[in-house]
């Protein structure tokens, strides 16, 4: 019963945040100087042509009215039509979102277990060679800007070794997973970035937990190795880590732009960037709202898991 109330409260909270966000997103995109008419018309268009385009695109209606329409549509599952290219925003979303989700999920799927394993290995051996190695590697990786990591990965695996395609060209009419080898580098690029960040956090949390009296007691009771790590130390180190994983997911999802652009991966982040460049307000709004909703859902999950792994919070959610 308490759990039901807890979940209800969290979901209501998330919904409220989403409502506020929708307003913010709308306001922010409205505030973008210039509009799609300007972009479409180009430099040489006359004022009259611009005005005509604005009217065609219904940009001359009052913002509040358009916001109302947008929200009403969004609730009904219709995110409107893009200004540029005139496509259904939901269609684009449903086309691209699975790709992005797959990319992010694979990256996280690769990074999270690896980060936990490496973070544990290092945190449990604080100060010893294994820790030095892992920490130093994570330190350097975390300090490399994404595009540099990506450039290096491409140079090594694509250009020098020629093992993997440098561009993720999806077969026409297919999906990225139809050519798995083309997904390796994008996933790797994204995973490496997340891996370094998460490894460091796991390591510091684990080091903290490993030095606690209960960990010592477990060691004195003869618990060792994997069991010690997984059953005794990790549960206590997980609180902050889960939270960050959740934020990470949202970040990776929306922030995969650099990776998606460089590999020409057909994802939402890439579309979002294009849409912003095109001043395609409905597209920006729709994609941003969807990403926000998704990220919120993951955050919610993170909160719930975070509460679950912290017994003090768990017993009284």
């Amino acid at each position, binding site marked *: 019963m308490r759990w039901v109330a807890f979940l209800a409260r969290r979901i209501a909270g998330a919904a409220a945040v989403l409502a506020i966000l929708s307003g913010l997103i709308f306001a922010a995109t409205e505030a973008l100087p210039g509009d799609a008419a300007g972009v479409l018309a180009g430099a040489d268009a006359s004022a009259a*042509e611009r005005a005509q385009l604005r009217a065609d695109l219904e940009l001359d209606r009052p913002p509040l009215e358009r916001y109302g329409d947008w929200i009403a549509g969004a609730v009904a599952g219709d995110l409107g039509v893009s200004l540029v290219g005139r496509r259904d925003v939901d269609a684009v979303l449903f086309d691209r979102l699975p790709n992005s989700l797959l990319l992010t999920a694979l990256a996280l799927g690769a990074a999270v277990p690896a980060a936990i394993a490496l973070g544990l290995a290092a945190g449990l051996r604080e100060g010893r060679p294994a820790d030095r190695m892992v920490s130093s590697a994570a330190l350097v990786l975390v300090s490399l800007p994404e595009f540099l990591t990506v450039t290096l990965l491409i140079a090594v695996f694509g250009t020098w070794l020629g093992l993997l395609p440098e561009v993720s060209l999806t077969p026409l009419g297919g999906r990225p997973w139809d050519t798995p080898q083309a997904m390796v580098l994008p996933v790797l690029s994204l995973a490496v970035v997340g891996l370094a960040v998460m490894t460091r956090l796991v390591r510091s949390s684990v080091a903290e937990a490993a030095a606690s009296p209960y960990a010592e007691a477990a060691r004195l009771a003869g618990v060792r190795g994997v069991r010690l790590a997984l059953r005794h130390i990790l549960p206590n180190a997980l609180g902050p880590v889960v939270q960050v994983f959740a934020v990470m997911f949202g970040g990776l999802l929306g922030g995969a732009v650099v990776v998606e652009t460089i590999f020409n991966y057909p994802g939402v982040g*890439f579309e979002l960037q294009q849409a912003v460049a095109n001043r395609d307000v409905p597209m920006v709004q729709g994609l941003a709202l969807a990403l926000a909703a998704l990220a919120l859902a993951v955050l919610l999950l993170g909160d719930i898991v975070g509460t679950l792994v912290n017994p003090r919070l768990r017993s009284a959610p």
Partner: protein
Amino acid sequence: SSSGGQSAAQQASASPKSGGTLRAAFPGGGAAETLDFLNGPTALDYVRARAMHGALGAIDPGAPDGVRYGVLERIDISDDLSSYTLKVRRGVKFTDGSALTARDVLYSLNAPVTLGSLPFLKPPSQNFDLAKARVEDDLTLVLPTKRPIADGRLILCQSTLVFKDGTTAFTAGMPTCGPFKLTEFQPGQGAAFVRHDEYYGLALGGGPYVDGLELRSIADATARVNALTGGQADFAADIGPVASRTLAANGRFAVETSELPYATSLSFGLNLAHAPFRDVRVRRAFKLAVDREAIVKTVLFGHGFVGNDLPSLGFPDYAKEIEQRPYDPGQARSLLRDAGADGMKITLTTGSEVAGLAETSTLYAENLKAIGVDVTLDQRPPGRLFADEGYFKLPFAASFSPPTPPLSQYESTRTAGAPSAFGFDRPDIDELVAKARGARDAGERREAAVRAQRLMWEEGNQVIPVFVPSINGQAKTLGGVRYEPFASFSEARLV
């Protein structure tokens, strides 16, 4: 090495071979890409349309009429320049087997107005009175002009594509009469085509030679080059000057640049609303200050053409007799001093919409500093330059312009104080341009055109230091890529 498309084409025709699937990579527009090329924002939308739809023709300075005809056989102009007669080629067939008629052509010319379109497709409807057009018979269409013009062929053939009478939606299954048949289209990803076996060009002994064509959309220039070098594409469009140098070092690939007139002008508008620019000496100083050769050399690595502050380099009406303006910072400085504008403060607003724009602006700003102008560069992020309503109010702004015939371009953008002219309002030049376009006598026409351009050269408010061609990378196995005005693969071959 701006070897031009020709040599490669010759190479290819030395050992003609048909077949294969050509894969070309273009900068795309993501989900915004559309089959509705009338409203398609990217070059790729137009390239794709050009592959599937027949074109009236293409601008070709080497051809007798200045144009190479496509689905038309010829265009006859009445002596008084007030009526154009379009003769449709016999035997042009749509993919559904029906024949192309004059009615289809008229419908297509009207479409930008009736269906709505981006401004660059509107010149035919602006210059011809389409409401009064007459279909004489299945293959003959007569178009009265709104006022007598001599360059109507260029306007008609520049970018008009034809489709069936009554078309309202552009779909993958629609009947088309271009060199290729669309088989697959995914916005943001690409389109696949097979050769259209009933294409009229085949009967004339031309292309297409390849069996299939894939146009892939790859936004990032580096990624396009990677796709090319990684063997995922045979052609990479718009790779930019720097990447072209990298590619040139690789023996398996060639860098091909488009020939004139297919080059984009980089220009700088001096807004006459800004007091110092009202003094012609200041404008002249700004033109003399720019080191054009250096820009071509360092920014474009030689892949570019020095501009002479006049648009439309390479078009028939371009005034090539006007002498090249020199780089003369000394004189520029003294002109500024004379005008009392020494040490003037100005902000140069620029963007990175096309290759070289940002870098050219950077060098230009340095050139201006050297003559004593206190210039600040306002470099806007990509896609941001024209998005702003206030663009035409900027005192000093960078711009670019795709290749278009000079006179009609002048009329649509700079006459009668159009805002895009940055306050330049010269009825005398307007009149000269109108005269040039409408004069029956070729000599007379030429003279008016040159006079108008000389006035703009001397007193105008546009600095056009360079023209940037489209720089593409392609596998050495590929030849026959043409420009009309974007890359076209109807004559391309893979060897």
